[in-house]
Each structure stands twice: as structure tokens, then as C-alpha cells.
């Protein structure tokens, strides 16, 4: 099983602060930090943003992983650096942060792509040292003996008419 050690609260707050600054500077619709399995590590939306980030992150991760697989087929040794989806009203710019993590930036077509690339690059340089720190969380306290039973109960309650 692949285990991602996750971020500490301090790391998370630092990351969030970087993303918030980026959203504000470029008046973005949303920005989120995602791992290649589609899990959102942190996200920030503009006040008016109404985006289903769970679904978007999953789709972005699928695209990112597929693109990396394509480049491997072409003999490339490293991951892709960036991808761009251009829509009629909204664009998505994806930029690799580490081997396993990327930044997805959702912005309106009025925002200059050059500015997005420039500020994304600056944000990456801020994020990389934060993400390199090892979190010191206590894993052994994650599940206790009652967790399975409680989870079972919750699952039963979640399914309607079962």
C-alpha cells in the first residue's frame, strides 16, 4: 500500500497561505494542490467560485497521470512540467510541483496565461520546501479498536433502504 504521510497542520497552513496569495494576485477562480491519485492536499477558491473540486481534482489527476504515461511511452525520463486546458470561459493550468504532486489553477480567459505561468512558478518555489518537510504526526493513534465497528454502523446508515 502506498502511504502518503500527509501534511502537518503547520505545513497545511503555510500551503494554504501560498495558495490564497496566488488566488488574490491573479483573481483566479480556484487553485488546488493535488497528488497524482487525485487527492486534494489543499485548495483555495475565489469568493464567487462554485466548483466541485473533488471531481475536478480527480479528473485533473487522471489527465496528469495519463500525460506522464504518454511521455514515458515517448522515452522521457521525467514527469511533464505543465499542461494547459483552454476553454471558452475558463482555463485550467496544471504545473508539476514534485514527482507526485501538482498545482491546478482555474482561471478565466481574461487572465493572461503568461502571468499565470509566472506566478505559478513563484508559488512552486515557495511550496517545494514546505512539502519537503517530514511531518511528525502520530500514526499509531489513527484507528482504535472501536473504529471498524463504528465505520460499519455508519456505512449501514449511509445506504438508503438496505
Amino acid at each position, binding site marked *: *500500500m*502506498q*502511504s*502518503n*504521510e*500527509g*501534511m*502537518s*497542520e503547520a*505545513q*497545511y*497552513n503555510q500551503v494554504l497561505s501560498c495558495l490564497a496569495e496566488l488566488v488574490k494576485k491573479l483573481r483566479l477562480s480556484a487553485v488546488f494542490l493535488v*497528488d*497524482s*491519485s*487525485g*487527492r486534494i*492536499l489543499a485548495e483555495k477558491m475565489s469568493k464567487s467560485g462554485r466548483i*466541485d473540486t*473533488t*471531481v475536478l481534482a*480527480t*479528473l485533473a489527476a*487522471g489527465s496528469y*497521470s*495519463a500525460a506522464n*504515461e504518454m511521455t514515458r*511511452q515517448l522515452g522521457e525520463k521525467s514527469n511533464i512540467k505543465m499542461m494547459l486546458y483552454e476553454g471558452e470561459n475558463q482555463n485550467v493550468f496544471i504545473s508539476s510541483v514534485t514527482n507526485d504532486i501538482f498545482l491546478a489553477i482555474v482561471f478565466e480567459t481574461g487572465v493572461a496565461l503568461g502571468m499565470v505561468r509566472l506566478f505559478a512558478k513563484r508559488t512552486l518555489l515557495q511550496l517545494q520546501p514546505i512539502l519537503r518537510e517530514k*511531518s511528525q*504526526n502520530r*500514526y*499509531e493513534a*489513527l*484507528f*482504535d479498536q*472501536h*473504529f*471498524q465497528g*463504528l*465505520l*460499519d454502523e*455508519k*456505512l*449501514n*446508515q*449511509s*445506504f*438508503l*433502504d*438496505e
Partner: protein
Amino acid sequence: MFIHWALKEIHLKIVYYGPALCGKTANLQYIHSRIDPALKSDLVMLKTQEDRTIFFDFLQLEVGFIDNKKPKFNIYTVPGQVNYNHTRKVVLNGVDGIVFVADSQKEMMDANLDTLLDLEKHLIADGKTLEDFPWILQYNKRDLPNAESIQEMETKLNFFNVPHFEAIATQGKGVFPTVKEVVKLVVANVQQHLEDGKRMRA
């Protein structure tokens, strides 16, 4: 597995695997239709015009806080057609548990076996193996007249004696017990993994 300590979330990835048209998507569609709307994401289905999965289906389930932690289950299916082998590898990235959906029709046994071996190859490439990875079997399409016997299905496919469930996914039969069991296995495996890690650090 991903632990988001700040938000107290535990993200676990489950993949439904199996040959083409075995019922992987039908499982997810049924789960999506029966889950409390407050606890699920949209059902994402990336498919061709012929309704065949081309990349993956996706559904996120959450059950709220348990013991001050919020487990979230990200459930995917893979495309079953033979030519999508590389896509299946991409979808398997980061998987924590697998449901292998076998098509019970007699003539599909070779396809079941080929796909199971394909799965094993992908797991081995990632340093894992079916022998010690959390997975379960679902024998789907039990309502069809040409369905193979359970005994034969078990002999041919369940060489590691993993939990198995009979199902008719289009009717929802066996779907919920399957997902409950794989969730249980995945959580138990996570706990074991964490305890092993604790012993190594000690």
C-alpha cells in the same frame, strides 16, 4: 492512503477491476443511486459514445466523522477492454484496496483469468502482489442461465482464498456487502501497516 492531519481526513482509494462488461460501472451506479446524497460526490463517468468506460468512473463516499476522523473512500473503476492496459495502470496508482468483479458467464472465464493476471502484473510492477494485498472477489451476473457454478469460480479464480460475494449488480444484489467488505479490509490493512511502521521506528 493519504492522511490530511489538518482536516482530520483519511483518504483511501478503492478500484473495481475486471474484464470488459463485467459490471464494474453497474456497481458504482448502484452505489451512487442508494447512498445518502449528503455523503457522496457526483458520479464521474468517462465513457465512449457506446457507453464503454474509456478512462475511469469515480465516486467519493464519506460517512462523516468517526472518532474525530473523517474517512473518505475514493472509488474508481478501470476500463475493461484489452487495449486499455496502460490506462488501467494509471488508475491503479495509489490504490489501497481492489474489488475484482468477475463475469460469471462460462465463456468469460478466460477473460476473467487474463484480467486477473493483468492486475497481478500491474501490482508487481508497483512492488505489491495479490497474495498480500487487500482485495476481494465479486462473482457478478449470477442471474444469467449460463453462469458458472460458484465452486468452479472459486477453484479457477480464488487461489488466495479472499472474501467473495455473489452479485447481480444491475439489481443491486451483493453490491453493498461487497463495498462494505472491501472498506473493512482496507481499514484493517491501514491499521496493520501503521502498526508495522511503529514497530520499525521503535
